[in-house]
């Protein structure tokens, strides 16, 4: 294969991997502290991307022209709004169902996801149509041999890795992170230590949802387009990545995200090469089939944190 094309596939795979890992980390955090699967997570990502787009529209109308300022404000607004939404969902929908069977939480968040998705479709102006997402990052490209490294992609990749590193830092090095890990391991003993359980749960949901908003905006910047259903597939992929990695384990989720992106990219490259009648669009089928086979082999994921007995 041509080196330039190969580089393109690697860059694309890494980019997708970062986005998937960011979504997967949310799933794994929520499962860690509450043992629940929150299926509205992908649609929170969609809402975050649209919140960013709406902010962009507002800034254009107000006459802020600098792309850097626009992007910064979009990120701040979208991340803050989704962090708040995540905490609201935790407080009013997930926590009250703590004593109910876990299937109820699953069903409720599934419905909430559908409602969020429909709200974006119905209330956003022409929300049913794909929306062009502004290109706010510099579009220059650097030629590395026959591979063109686009500056915007490099920045996105670095930004995503920095976000994951920041979350990792919060979890492993801060007092909040210690509380989150304690609650994840033994919620009752964590309360006996003086940890405000509800506050830690709300902050965890805020953290995961803010990260989803960031992933949504990165997704928009990468494809220069968003639509109301992007969260559907990204949610399922993020969930798969978290399960493949081992639910509850942050490293597992990051690993799972990159693994899934690797499978997709491999599918896109190998399928047309091996079976000429299969177009690369079958990459998702290939990746999900590989995940299913993997789960049959290792039901608890790569790094088993706790068994998913509640799903």
């Amino acid at each position, binding site marked *: 294969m041509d080196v330039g094309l190969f580089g393109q596939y690697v860059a694309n795979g890494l980019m997708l991997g970062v986005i998937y890992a960011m979504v997967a980390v949310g799933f794994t955090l929520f499962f860690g502290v509450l043992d629940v699967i929150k299926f509205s997570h992908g649609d929170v990502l969609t809402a975050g991307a649209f919140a960013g787009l709406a902010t962009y529209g507002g800034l254009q109308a107000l006459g802020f022209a600098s792309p850097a300022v626009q992007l910064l404000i979009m990120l701040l607004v979208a991340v803050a709004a989704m962090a708040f939404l995540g905490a609201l969902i935790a407080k009013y929908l997930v926590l009250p169902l703590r004593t109910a069977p876990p299937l109820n939480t699953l069903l409720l968040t599934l419905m909430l996801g559908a409602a969020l998705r429909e709200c974006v479709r119905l209330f956003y102006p022409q929300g049913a149509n794909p929306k062009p997402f502004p290109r706010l990052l510099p579009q220059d490209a650097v030629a590395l041999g026959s591979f063109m490294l686009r500056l915007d992609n490099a920045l996105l990749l670095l930004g995503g890795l920095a976000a994951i590193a920041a979350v990792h830092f919060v979890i492993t090095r801060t007092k909040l992170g210690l509380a989150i890990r304690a609650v994840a391991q*033994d919620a009752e003993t964590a309360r006996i230590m003086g*940890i405000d359980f509800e506050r830690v749960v709300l902050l965890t949901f805020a953290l995961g949802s803010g990260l989803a908003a960031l992933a949504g905006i990165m997704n928009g910047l990468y494809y220069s387009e968003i639509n109301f259903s992007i969260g559907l597939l990204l949610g399922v992929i993020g969930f798969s990545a978290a399960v493949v990695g081992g639910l509850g384990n942050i490293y597992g989720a990051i690993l799972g995200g990159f693994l899934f992106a690797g499978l997709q990219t491999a599918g896109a490259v190998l399928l047309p090469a091996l079976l000429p009648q299969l177009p690369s669009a079958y990459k998702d089928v290939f990746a999900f089939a590989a995940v299913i086979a993997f789960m049959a082999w290792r039901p608890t994921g790569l790094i088993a944190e706790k068994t998913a007995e509640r799903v």
Partner: protein
Amino acid sequence: MAALLGIEGISVGYDRADVLRDVSLAVEAGSITCILGSNGSGKSTLIRAILGLTPPRRGRIVLDGADIAGLPTHAIVARGVACIPEGRRVFPKLTVAENLRLGAYRETREARIRSRMDKVFAIFPRLAERAGQLAGTMSGGEQAMISIGRGLMPEPRLLLVDEPSLGLSPLLVKENFAVIRRANEMGITLLLVEQNVRQTLAIAHSGYVLSQGRVVASGSAPELAQSAEVHQAYFG
């Protein structure tokens, strides 16, 4: 002596059934007060009620003159109550140092956390050697040290100790009781819940006997050692 903790006629239960019925007792400041009782007598439920994990349906729990019944657990802990829970309950995937740090979660001053950790390390030098090791990989005796050290970390005014002898060898039980007595000499008031009558009465000042959710006897430790109810509650 003034009572640091006064429990006034509490009833506590899960679902429909009351496990504790109209229980009243007092823990004098500076004392070791013990609660004796066999399995199922309601001892652990009493601890859960004081911590706010299972709030009482009726009655008051007065800490230093203020009713704490119904407060969330973290607010009760913030008032100076700590617990060494039954079965040790260390956080298995956290290090020894992180476990201890969590004991002093309400303390924000890093210097104080450090100096208290040093005190715990002075009591249990073994923990200092293993500070970076994951608690779940350590022996039962070492986990008991972590759990006790974690309970001392907040320098609580009232320390609830739930069945410290459970599942430990006689030698370790002896050592742990010595540490509990030492904590009391350092000024910590203790409420000690135990099945092990002889060793408990040897260090306690006074105590109560629970049977089927009611207080059936109370008195000073020497009185309880002679009491027929104690014998009946255990061996009867």
